[in-house]
């Protein structure tokens, strides 16, 4: 059974509809990349599914249960975890406190400690900086912390909105590799929005290419990358 | 006819009308700054005080010169602070019509000029601060001003204040206040027209542009610093005029007449009537001036024969401020636009477009 199914989603902001009837799904333990040219609505789609942007039409099923219209915090409680693109840490809290806040909904201290250990094993850097203020971290460390915070809730699915935005290529690739590692250790399915389509499609199990708010292509990563009309697709110049 | 005349001579009626006129000017000036330009001038009362003190100082000084006054006992500070000066000043007002009218006009002009200059200076922080911090800064300015007027003998006679002024019609005897009332209302009407003409213009659009989006205003050629300075200059000059009228009405200028509560009253009036709508301001001022003047034990008991229980007659003067506070809170919560909401500015661009759209609708039907 698919963990997450979004059916025929229309979403956007105010009264402008950016996402025009998109359906995607996410299977157990899958990493799915959402790529496409600028302004195609990748971030908006993820926000619409999570409930941060406005949903005009469509249905979201999580583990077979209809969660359409549930507010974001309620989605967090039932195991859907979201890493926003910006402002995704608490800059005035230490690294450790950031993680504790990530685990806010968990009451059992032992469980939190276990979780923290797991996170630190995945991100050894964060362990070294656990008492440092998050606002003083470098860009790459911040993004790691953002992902780590989202992991603390024991999520059953993760939405990542351009976690590598603004990072130097080496650091970005490092972060993406860490995502693979997380999947290996926890088997959490991830929906990953990525500006760097090639990187994302190379590591993901499957990918969707979004163009102008609609899905233009879907399939396995290398399938998409080997298409002859790749140029047109990614520059948004579709010749019919 | 007799009734109308007795009404015109009625002190309460006169008082309400004069205070209405003064607060109308003050609130219109606050509306230009806050309503149209978005400057939360919580220091409004400072500019009101400037007008009052200019009037007091000027009238006192000139009157004493005319009367060749020499103090028997000088207390420090300018001549008009001296013992016995107020009586002499009053005497000159009563006997010298040319002086009374002349000094009134002069005070208005000089007071307005002082206000305008000070307003331009006070617009400086508006460039650097967020709205809420700007509000606190301007409030601090007005409190510093009040502190100075309370403490310094020169030029404002400290807590003793400047006394002995009169209306410019003191020489008319018992008709003095009635005539002054008409003058105040006349000036208020003039100020209303002035304010309307000022804002219903390309300048008014520039004000609103700076208020609604400063960066966009800049991109389209408006210099926000200049626009704000202009708004503060106009607003502060008007507030000073209101202060001048107040000084000549009350006959004295005392530091504690210029507490922040005066500013808050003007805010409540503007918000109740409708921010960025001068017609609304008239309504707001009318309602709250009535509250201000009628929440008064002696007025209710003696004038209208409404008996008040003891606890109310002691406290009713304070209850009016409770009402004013409630007005501010309730308006923000339930109708931030006020009684008469903001409308597009009345310039040909809007008026002619209205006509055109109406014609095209009618044409479509026909």
């Amino acid at each position: 059974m698919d963990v997450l199914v979004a059916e025929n989603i229309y979403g956007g902001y105010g009264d402008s509809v950016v996402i025009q009837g998109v359906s995607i799904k996410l299977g157990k333990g899958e990493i799915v990349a959402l790529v496409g040219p600028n302004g195609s609505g990748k971030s908006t789609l993820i926000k619409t599914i999570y409930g941060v942007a406005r949903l005009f039409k469509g249905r979201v099923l999580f583990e077979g249960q209809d969660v359409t219209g549930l507010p974001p915090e309620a989605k967090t409680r039932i195991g859907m975890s979201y890493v926003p693109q910006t402002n995704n840490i608490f800059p005035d809290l230490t690294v450790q406190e950031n993680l504790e806040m990530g685990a806010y909904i968990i009451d059992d201290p032992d469980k939190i400690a276990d979780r923290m250990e797991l996170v630190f094993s995945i991100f050894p850097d964060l362990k070294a900086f656990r008492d440092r203020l998050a606002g003083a971290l470098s860009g790459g460390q911040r993004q790691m912390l953002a992902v780590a915070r989202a992991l603390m809730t024991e999520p059953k699915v993760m939405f990542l909105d351009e976690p590598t935005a603004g990072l130097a290529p080496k650091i970005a690739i490092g972060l993406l590799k860490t995502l693979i590692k997380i999947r290996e250790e926890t088997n959490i399915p991830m929906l990953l929005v990525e500006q760097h389509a090639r990187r994302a499609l190379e590591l993901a199990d499957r990918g969707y290419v979004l163009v102008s708010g609609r899905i233009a292509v879907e399939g396995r990563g290398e399938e998409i990358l080997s298409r002859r009309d790749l140029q047109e697709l990614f520059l948004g110049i579709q010749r019919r | 006819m007799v009734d109308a005349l007795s009404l015109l001579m009625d002190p309460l009626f006169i008082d309400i009308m004069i205070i209405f006129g003064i607060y109308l000017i003050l609130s219109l000036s606050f509306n230009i700054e806050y309503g149209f330009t978005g400057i939360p001038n919580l220091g409004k009362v400072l500019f009101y005080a400037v007008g009052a003190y200019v009037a007091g100082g000027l009238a006192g000084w000139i009157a004493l010169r005319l009367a060749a006054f020499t103090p028997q006992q000088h207390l420090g500070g300018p001549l008009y602070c001296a013992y016995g000066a107020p009586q002499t000043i009053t005497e000159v007002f009563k006997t010298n019509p040319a002086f009374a009218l002349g000094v009134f006009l002069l005070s208005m002009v000089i007071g307005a000029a002082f206000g305008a200059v000070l307003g331009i200076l006070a617009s400086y922080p508006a460039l650097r601060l967020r709205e809420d911090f700007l509000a606190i800064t301007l409030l601090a300015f007005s409190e510093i001003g009040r502190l100075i007027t309370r403490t310094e003998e020169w030029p404002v006679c400290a807590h003793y204040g400047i006394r002995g002024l009169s209306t410019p019609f003191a020489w008319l005897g018992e008709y003095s206040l009635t005539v002054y009332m008409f003058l105040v209302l006349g000036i208020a009407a003039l100020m209303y027209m002035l304010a309307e003409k000022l804002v219903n213009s390309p300048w008014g659009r520039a004000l609103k542009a700076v208020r609604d989006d400063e960066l966009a205003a800049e991109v389209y050629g408006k210099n926000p610093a200049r626009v704000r300075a202009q708004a503060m200059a106009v607003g502060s000059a008007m507030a000073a005029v209101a202060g001048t009228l107040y000084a000549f009405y009350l006959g004295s200028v005392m530091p504690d007449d210029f507490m922040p509560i005066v500013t808050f009253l003007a805010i409540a009036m503007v918000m109740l009537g409708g921010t960025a709508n001068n017609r609304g301001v008239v309504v707001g001022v009318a309602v709250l001036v009535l509250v201000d003047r009628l929440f008064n034990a002696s007025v209710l008991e003696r004038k209208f024969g409404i008996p008040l229980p003891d606890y109310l007659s002691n406290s009713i003067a304070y209850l009016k401020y409770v009402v004013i506070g409630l007005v501010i809170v309730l308006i923000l919560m339930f109708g931030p636009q006020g009684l008469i909401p903001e409308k597009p500015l009345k310039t040909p661009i809007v008026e002619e477009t209205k006509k055109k759209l109406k014609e095209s609708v009618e044409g479509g039907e026909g």
Partner: protein
Amino acid sequence: MVPTLAYTVFRAIIDGLLEGSLYALMGFGLTIVFRVTRVANFAHAEYVTYGAYAAYVAMVAWGLGLVPAAIVAALVVAGVALASDELVFKPLWRRGSTPLHFLVASIGVGLVLRFSLQAVAASVPGYLNIRLPEFPSTLAIIGGKVAINVVHALAPLLALGTTAALHVLFTRTKLGKAMRATASNPTLARISGINVIMVRRVTWIIGGLLAGLSGFIISYYIQANPEVGWNFLLWMFAAAIAGGFTFYGTIIAGIILGVVGQVAIILAGYYLGVTTAYKPAIALVIMVLVLLFRPEGIIRIQSLGLRRRA
């Protein structure tokens, strides 16, 4: 002459520490509420007044002792603060009001609170000017000239004690951390499942508790009237602004402001002949200068890292 001046300055420092502690307590309440809810709360001054009156009523009308009266003052004001949020600021926040609207609304709330108290005080004999019946006793007299009263020790100790308690709350408890998290990034706090409404409530309660305690100390220290808190308003804003609206910055800035204010006005009087009437001007001028030239504050303690961001 010199020994006299030295004693006068010493006296000023002692008084300054007392006043500074008050500014710190009041400014802290202002800061915490501002950080979590963005309300620059003018009504905070009125909370202080209500604390003074609550303590007085507790002692005079109910015959309670000093310590229970302090507790009553803190609790009553916590209730008043919470009520003003529930009735006014939270609904305004829900409808998306701007920080300026919050500020103007808080002026309205302040007027309602101050003048309804004023109205009651005017009709109940003996309530226009109040002072706690139990006067602070003298702890020590230094050099035969400078008397140090209980209240001189009480205020700084209370300030220290509250700071310590708040430090524990903010660094050791889940609730305190959640408060800091909400102040730091409200959206992410919500996404993380933090109950921001509860955080908001606790914030107002803490602000109220501190204002109530300050009011209690004031009525123990000087004669109070329905305007007493209002007279402190710009001082508490000065402390919060100079402290850059950081938690510890405000406390330290408040204490420094108290001492500097007292000493500066004494010295200015001694050397320049300036009257003490200008004391409030020190707070005002510091506040305006800080806002204009270092709007991020001059004393910013970042160990808890609560920075103010635009």
